Every structure is written in structure tokens, then in C-alpha cells.
């Protein structure tokens, strides 16, 4: 098991490498060749699906009782999404949604 410093350093390096690969990829492979259609399709459709997977697991799922720790995250995500749908100002949407979450959690939990 890696300890603190080296775990973080290696994690950052791995993520830096992954990011670099996605950016270098088209330049390294397709400077002289036609880009295959399936690849364009994948690169276009995958990120949207991934974003949903990133939001969904941090949402609590229970059908038993409607406690604040259940509905506050859902409400805050809805506030963020609605704000962004109508105003399309990323920072405003994030601040509004987070403020909603922090305030309601402080008051009700």
C-alpha cells in the first residue's frame, strides 16, 4: 500500500498521463489518415454518459422515508441544473447549487 505523499504524487501523474493521451491522440494518429467514424462517434457520445455516472452515485437512493439527508442533495442538484439550463453561467449555477446544499444542511441536519 502506498502511503500519503507517493500515493497522491502517483495518482496525479497517472491522471496527467491520461489527460495527455486524450489530447495527443488525434495529432499522433491522424495527422495523415482519415479519422474512423466510430471513434468520432465515441468521443462525442461518451462524455455525456460519463457525466451522468459522476452525478448519480453521489445522490442518496432510498424509498423508505423522506429525511432531509435524502431530499437536500436531490433538490440542490435540481436547482443547479435548472439555473444552468436557463442562465448558462457555470459559476453562478455551481455557487447557487452549493449554497442551497450548504444552507439547507446547516439548518435542517
Amino acid at each position, binding site marked *: 500500500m502506498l502511503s500519503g505523499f507517493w*500515493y*497522491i504524487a502517483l*495518482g*496525479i501523474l*497517472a*491522471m*496527467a*498521463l*491520461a*489527460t*495527455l*493521451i*486524450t*489530447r*495527443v*491522440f*488525434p*495529432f499522433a494518429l*491522424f*495527422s495523415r489518415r482519415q*479519422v474512423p*467514424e466510430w*471513434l*468520432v*462517434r*465515441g*468521443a*462525442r*457520445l*461518451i*462524455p*455525456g*454518459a*460519463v*457525466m*451522468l*455516472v*459522476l*452525478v*448519480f*452515485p*453521489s445522490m442518496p*437512493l432510498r424509498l423508505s422515508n423522506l429525511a432531509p439527508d435524502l431530499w437536500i*442533495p436531490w433538490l*440542490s*442538484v435540481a436547482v*443547479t*441544473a435548472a439555473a*444552468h*439550463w436557463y442562465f448558462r453561467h*457555470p*459559476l453562478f*449555477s*455551481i455557487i447557487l*447549487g*452549493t449554497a442551497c*446544499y*450548504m444552507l439547507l*444542511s*446547516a439548518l435542517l441536519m
Partner: protein
Amino acid sequence: MKFSLPHAHTFRAAFATSLPVLFGYLSIGFAYGFLLVKAGFAWFWAPVSGILIFAGAAQFLSIGMLASGRSIGEMFLAVLLINARHMVYGFSLLERFRAFSRFRAYLIFGLTDETYGLLTTVEPPAGADAEVFDALVTGLNQSYWVSGSTMGALFGSVLAWDAPGIEFSMTALFTVLLVEQIRSLRRPGPFLIALGVCVALYLVGLKEQSLLLGIVLSAIGVFFLPRKGAGDA
């Protein structure tokens, strides 16, 4: 005779071009640095990440993955798939970067969503070296991002208040990116697939460990979607 540095004119144009990103990167970077420190990490990881990774969504995700002790391989694969969109960016800049040499490697490394947006909409000013102009825009953007995240991390280190609930800003960021994706894709398919995968993993009781599995299954799943029409990806 007017005296000026060789690229002063280009620099002014690049700075003017990068201004819309200045405010956004400073503030979102600030939030990232703050969150990183509040998750228990030392402040210097913020500039280190900003210099080496330089990808907003991936860096926000990295906080959670590092804090919950995910494996290095998981982090690698998750970031590879979130940043898959960068592959599309490269395709439309192949021509523009073809003639470049000195800063080509850096331009490719620093191709974030925002830098891509600027470089594909703004032309270098007349008489300027296009490669220097593009490299300056990219470098300025990265300097805003690294400065903002360092300030956020330092601020978080000196602030005694732990800002309970601040970690929700990560979910909020991904929600914003999700809304952006919904608006630009204009088709429900990829999202329905991802939702189906999440629900299925939840039902088999894999909620906590399922992040990577969910990402991979959704990424494979989108290839089974029917095509919208001729010429459409």
C-alpha cells in the same frame, strides 16, 4: 522609431483574447484549490495538479478519488474516459497546428475546453506569429488556472471554518457539465444508457464501488445506440 519587445503586440492581442477565460479560471480554480485543502490535502498539490494535469473536470474528480483511496489504475481510466471529448477537439485543430513546431507540444498539452473554444473562434492578429499567439493564449489560460487554484488552496489553509457541505460543489460542477452535454448532444440515448447502468449497478448492490464500472459500461453502451441519420455521428 517605436521601441517594443518582439512580441508585445502579439501578447496584447493574446491577453485580450484570453480575458473571458480569466474570470472563469480564477474562480473555478479557486473553488478547486479550496476543496482540495478541505478534503485534507496539502495546498501545494493544487499548483502541482494545475501544472501537470490542467483539466478542470478531471482535477475535481481527482480530489474525490484520492480522498477515498481509489487505485491508480481506476484514476487513470476514469480520467481517460471523462477527457475523451478532447479527442474531438484535436481533430478540428489538426490543420491549424500542422505548420507549428516550437510550441506544438505545449499547445496540444494545454488544449482545455476553454482554450479550444478561443483558438477555434479567434484568428491571430494581422502580422503576428500565429504559433506564438496560440501559445500565449494557452499559457495565459494555464497561468489563470494555476493562480486561481493556488489562491483557493492557500485561502482554504488559513481559513479555520471548514465550510461543511462545500464538497457538494463537485457534484454541482458535474451537474453543470451534464446539462451542457444534454444541450449539445440533443438526444437522450447516451444519458438513458448511463442511467440504466447506474440503476442496474445499484440494484445489484454495487453503489459505492461502481464508479469505474459504471463509466466503462456506459462508454461501451453508447456504441450500441442507433445512428440518428446519414452523416450524423
